[in-house]
């Protein structure tokens, strides 16, 4: 019989690995769907679940692993597309982690998700601007940001809410 602290560690490792795999699946599926306004950010659902069930550090771990592994599916880790994903991932996970203390009083999962989506999209525009040698034309995409962030954040947030509320055992750590 494995001693209990080790079992808990193994359980955490398993759950985090599953979340990485879940995120990768969503990331791949989303890239296969032809959506006119870019992407919904479905993979952020895995980061969001990691954040709510474990915490900020684990959310960064799940996001980082997902983007690192996902980069091999789409162009490699140093491809500009992967750098854009990383910029968006770091920004959204940072903002969602900062919003976490306000959960569930001020912001629900939906609010945290929308905040993350907004940070993700703004960071990607900024990263694209830097990667393209500061071409001002990029900022023509700015008017799309509120709508894309709202749409993507709502979809991911509501899915997260459905999952968390149907699997209350998931909320076993900080926010029981």
């Amino acid at each position, binding site marked *: 019989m494995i001693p209990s602290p080790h079992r808990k560690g193994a359980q955490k490792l398993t759950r985090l690995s599953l979340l990485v795999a879940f995120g990768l699946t969503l990331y791949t599926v989303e890239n296969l769907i032809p959506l006119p306004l870019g992407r919904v950010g479905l993979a952020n659902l895995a980061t969001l679940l990691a954040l709510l069930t474990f915490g900020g550090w684990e959310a960064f771990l799940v996001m980082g692993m997902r983007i690192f592994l996902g980069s091999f599916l789409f162009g490699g880790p140093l491809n500009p*597309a992967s750098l854009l994903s990383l910029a968006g991932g770091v920004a959204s996970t940072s903002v969602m982690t900062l919003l976490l203390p306000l959960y569930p009083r001020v912001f629900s*999962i939906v609010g945290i998700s*929308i905040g993350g989506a907004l940070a993700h999209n703004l960071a990607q525009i900024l*990263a694209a601007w830097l990667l393209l040698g500061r071409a001002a034309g990029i900022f023509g995409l700015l*008017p799309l940001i509120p*709508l894309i962030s709202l749409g993507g954040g*709502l979809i991911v947030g509501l899915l997260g809410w459905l999952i968390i509320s149907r699997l209350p055992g998931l909320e076993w750590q900080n926010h029981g």
Partner: protein
Amino acid sequence: MTKPLTIGDKILIGLLVFGSLSAFLLPHRGPGEWVLIEADGKPLGRFPLKGEENISAQGPLGIHHIRISGGKVWVVDSPCPHKLCVKMGKKGRAGEVIVCVPNRVIVRVEGKRDFDSITP
């Protein structure tokens, strides 16, 4: 279990709805006149939006196929991994842009007046 929408959520959603509406309603975007294409940091040219044109733009990953037809411009095919530029669809209003970061291609639609920044 928490409720789906708290007060903070509603404020955030309200702000973004307002932002979306103002972005699309207030600065009225007139019809575009010109298509400006930039590839790998260099201006490739200015093409009339009213015309018919197939343009090949060379980026670091390969050739971008861009088409202008019926007052719209769009990316037909691209060598980039996510094909977001293809998914962005057809653009025809002044100020609209299609950006492909991996292949360093920017397509901008401009209106009558703004002959600015990246004139070749």
